[in-house]
């Protein structure tokens, strides 16, 4: 009973935990400017992992991923990324047609992604402080 309530609450929180595509794009561009074009510097990777992480313990529909990625990439490249990176490296498992679930390794990657966002924000804040110093 307790477990079910916790699960429900977790789902509710994740539903409201929306993904800021613009922010993700800015973070990806920041890492690209540092010469990191894959992983944290890849907007597709970021968005897919964000959606998978948001749905931890639940099946993520491919259509749900596309809600965030459609304005940035075509269906084919997202599908290819799911296969060549997420499934191949064991970050996500395909549980049904068009349905994926994040693995423990994927959660680790998702946590790392959160750290990269925090680093970006910290760096940006510091950059602004320095910019304001005469």
């Amino acid at each position, binding site marked *: 009973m307790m477990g079910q309530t916790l699960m429900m609450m977790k789902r509710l929180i994740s539903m409201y935990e929306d993904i800021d595509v613009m922010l993700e794009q800015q973070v990806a561009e920041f890492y690209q400017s540092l010469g990191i074009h894959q992983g944290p510097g890849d907007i597709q990777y970021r968005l897919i992992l964000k959606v998978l992480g948001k749905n931890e313990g639940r099946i993520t529909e491919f259509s749900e991923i596309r809600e965030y990625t459609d304005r940035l990439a075509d269906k084919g490249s997202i599908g290819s990324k799911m296969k060549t990176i997420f499934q191949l490296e064991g970050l996500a498992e395909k549980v049904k047609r068009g349905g994926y679930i994040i693995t423990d390794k994927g959660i680790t990657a998702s946590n790392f992604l959160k750290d990269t966002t925090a680093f970006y924000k910290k760096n940006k804040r*510091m950059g*602004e*402080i*320095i*910019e*304001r*110093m*005469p």
Partner: protein
Amino acid sequence: MSAGILLNATICFAITISSFAFAWVLARDGSEHNDKSKPALWSLIVLWVLVGLTYLPTTVRMIAASIGNQQLDLLMYYIAAVPFSFVSVPLVFFILYVIIGDQRISGYISALFVLFGAAYLAFFYSSGVIGPTITPLTSLFTINSDIAINIYLIGLFVIPTAMIIGLLFLILLQRMPKRLRYRTALPLVAISFVFDFMLTDMITLEDTMQLAARIFVLIGTVQAFLAYFPPMNLQEKLGIQKYESSLYEKDDGTDFDDDEEADINV
């Protein structure tokens, strides 16, 4: 005429000249700074002008003390108290603006320090001072109001100093290029030096401590100048010089990178 007091007057005059010169150089090069840093730049200019305006009457005061003119000494002490009590206003604005980046909020909070300064002056003028006590090194006055001293210590000293230390730690705890670290941390250390020793100067009852505080204010002013305009040899010694690629190009126009790229077999 005591040589010690004349030395004191010379130090005060040196502080005045160097603060005004520094403010003038900052204002002259104002166009080189970006729009975001301009409010902080102008607050810095005001700060140095106020430092200069505090030490200009103090110089006259020291000369008056050396020739035994106590009335002029007292008058100059009262005049110097005005710019001195508002020194924390541009300082607080500078720190807050650099940290939060909001001109309006920084303005409101620094306006609070105008009130602190005005309250200090009100108590200071209404209670008067005791003195002067002429020593071989200086002329000292005792502020005759405990409330004025408390406002001065808490409002004008503790809070702005804590703000400087906070900003300094914020910068020092970050990993950043050595050049940027120098450029941001040294002005803060210099401001802290000047500000803290100015306050020590005004409150102390020991002549040697006052002279030492004034020497440190002068060191702080020079330090601020070095922070903004570091000489070439200092830049080389600290490894903070800005390299320009044009200085490192080969005379014949060939580039080493081209040779390396040619060796790579793809």
